């Protein structure tokens, strides 16, 4: 009744070509954005303030669900461009994400290379020499990560001119295995650490804005404030404790400090020891930044796929011969799809490192199972649909977490922990098959059907 096109006309083609055909859709999206950007953080904050929700529950929601979900949405969008819109199946998504993550890492640490020299005692002395200034702006890092990944993606997309279908899918595994091998073998990539792990250093944005204050109590009873500037999104920043400070009086702003818990723990009156303290990003900052990135890229993707580039991709996907005969260059079009898709995946990988994990081991974080799970998201969500990318990412990310959280109920019945875990796997596998049988076109198709039903509701005839 409320959701129908009656009475909505467009008088210009420009308007008719807008993203939304219906005003209701447009308002719906604005509502959703409002919810995600404002209602979620403020609501959670109020819930915690009101004592309804534990602070750690809020952390749990952000750190292990929402951030991961956003990263997965980004990666699913990336793969959907390639597989859903351009019809090229790829099993190398995780590796491309890895390229993004390592690019972000290298730029954030100044592109070090190693110089090894023998000193007088015959010991090997190695020093890291930076060749670029360190970049501490996450946005710049993410864009660089996307750009480099796009180039790598194009290289691995070259065989797609000759190889098609599942043959191409398996061939993209070459990228997967080769790149992951590089992540654990090319020492330069991980700054020559002994274990091939990487950790993102301090990153912050808008460092000219004051975002928080920590107030220290001095021996004479007065207070001294230390102000914190910029929004931290990754790593931690070390600051000096004012000379002679005795206690911490309060901490406020977009920060978490080493002291934030000392304040509330039973021995809160404990004196400050040491000369420095460290501040950490709050999950809200990370969430808002990643959400903004995902929204911006979703907008870009929507624009690309509804324009000439998207049409060329879909033409190649639907019938590549006919597409060539109307003048679409197959190689250029496919490579552009590989480039854009890899750009998105690279951004997702950089987000994974910067916002979600912070430190990771390349070969483990970007292994083949990740590639599969992203392909899952795209297919369960619906090929060739942006909404589908989001729905699929949500399904694949959230289902296991929901299953884990209903686990205590099952655990009481079965003592065997492994059995509970196995049941979870079986349920997950069965759900996937069930979904494919019920709606092979994915969740986005279900969503569409629901909308069509809603258009007619409550008078279907």
């Amino acid at each position, binding site marked *: 009744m409320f959701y129908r096109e009656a009475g909505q006309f467009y008088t210009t083609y420009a308007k008719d070509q807008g993203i939304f055909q219906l005003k209701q859709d447009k308002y719906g999206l604005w509502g959703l954005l409002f919810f995600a950007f404002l209602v979620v953080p403020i609501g959670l904050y109020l819930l915690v303030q009101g004592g309804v929700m534990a602070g750690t529950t809020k952390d749990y929601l952000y750190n292990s669900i929402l951030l991961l979900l956003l990263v997965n949405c980004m990666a699913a969008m990336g793969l959907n461009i390639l597989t859903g819109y351009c019809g090229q199946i790829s099993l190398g998504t995780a590796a491309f994400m890895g390229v993004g993550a390592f690019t972000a890492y290298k730029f954030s640490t100044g592109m070090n290379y190693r110089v090894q020299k023998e000193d007088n005692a015959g010991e090997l002395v190695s020093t890291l020499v930076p060749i670029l200034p360190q970049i501490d702006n996450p946005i710049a890092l993410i864009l660089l990560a996307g750009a480099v990944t796009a180039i790598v993606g194009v290289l691995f997309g070259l*065989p797609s001119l*000759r190889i098609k279908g599942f043959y191409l899918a398996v061939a993209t595994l070459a990228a997967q295995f080769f790149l992951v091998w590089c992540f654990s073998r090319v020492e330069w990539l991980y700054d020559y650490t002994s274990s091939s792990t990487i950790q993102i250093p301090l990153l912050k944005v808008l460092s000219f804005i004051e975002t928080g204050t920590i107030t220290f109590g001095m021996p004479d009873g007065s207070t001294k404030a230390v102000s914190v500037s910029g929004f931290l999104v990754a790593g931690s920043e070390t600051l000096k404790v004012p000379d002679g400070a005795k206690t911490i009086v309060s901490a406020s702003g977009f920060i978490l400090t080493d002291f934030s818990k000392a304040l509330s723990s039973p021995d809160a009156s404990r004196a400050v020891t040491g000369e420095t303290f460290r501040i950490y990003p709050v999950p809200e900052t990370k969430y808002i930044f990643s959400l903004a990135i995902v929204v911006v890229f979703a907008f870009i993707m929507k624009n690309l796929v509804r324009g000439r580039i998207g049409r060329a991709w879909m033409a190649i996907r639907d019938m590549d011969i006919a597409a060539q005969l109307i003048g679409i260059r197959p190689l250029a079009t496919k490579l552009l799809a590989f480039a854009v898709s890899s750009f998105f995946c690279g951004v997702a990988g950089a987000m994974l490192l910067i916002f979600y994990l912070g430190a990771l081991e390349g070969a483990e974080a970007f292994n083949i199972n990740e590639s*599969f799970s992203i*392909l899952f998201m795209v297919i369960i969500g619906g090929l060739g649909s942006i909404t589908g990318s989001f729905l699929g990412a949500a399904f694949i990310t959230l289902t296991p977490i929901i299953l884990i959280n209903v686990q205590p109920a099952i655990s009481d019945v079965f003592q065997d922990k492994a059995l509970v875990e196995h049941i979870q796997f*079986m349920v997950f596998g069965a759900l996937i*098959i069930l979904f494919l049988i019920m709606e092979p076109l994915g969740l986005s198709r279900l969503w569409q059907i629901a909308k069509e039903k809603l258009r007619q509701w409550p008078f279907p005839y």
Partner: protein
Amino acid sequence: MGEILEFIFAPILIFESWRFGMEVVISGLLAGVMYSLVALGFVLIYKASGMFNFAQGVLVLFAALNLAGFIGLGVPIPLAIILTIGIMILFAIVVEYLILRHLVNQEQIILFMATIGLAFFLSAFGETIWGSEVKKLDVGIPQGRFEPFGIQIQYLELTAGAVAAALVICLAIFFNKTKIGRALRAVADDHQAALSVGINLRTIWIIVWAVSGIVALVAGTMWGAKSGVQFSLSEIALKALPVLILGGFESIPGAIIGGLIIGLGEKLAEVGWGPYVGGAIEDWFAYILAMVFLVFRPQGLFGEKIIERV
């Protein structure tokens, strides 16, 4: 310059010691046969249903788990094998009944995804029944080695080669001489036409899944004898994929020849080039080898040349 040449020709230079070179070649070929055993199961299902069965690796695990489990319970080996074959056939029927018949005429990628879902389910299901511990699997395959001309050859791998040969012969007879086999080939050639002459597609699917379950059992037995039966067994599917693209998804001889090429290629590369670049290159080398090959022959080794029509 000399170093560069040495690097480029490293895989050939290993033949400086011809015994060692021959050992690499033989090990490579025999390792390739082990991959082929896994690849065969993929080929069978793809041929008959156009389904890229990602669960094949888990099927190998599942079959081996059952066999090792029964033997562990004290069931005599021949009976255990028969029981396991029975389970694989039952499994084929269940898969057809619960999954395949509901996915008729779906796109290939959907079928592919469904098999991944199946893989999730089956690996957990197998371990629920038989536990996650490593199980020893000993069906009397000779262990140890012999050394003609100072070249080491292991009995297990030789057995694998013989088993693979026997399996291919059995499959060839099955496909060419039996009525079911002819029906299978008809389905592989043209679904619609096969349907129209009265071949029951569902029966075909059951048979083909059962056969590939039995092939999985053979592969699982060989691999299980090598490394014990445990979850990791399911991951050998990834070693079979380059074999598949090299040999073509639909060709049984392709799976064998592809396996030999991949096995030989990756061992030569690892032994030759590995030390220069830090080693562990064989995984991606197999894929790159297959991919390069594919660029020149997009239809695989034994696939038919594709003539595009409009």
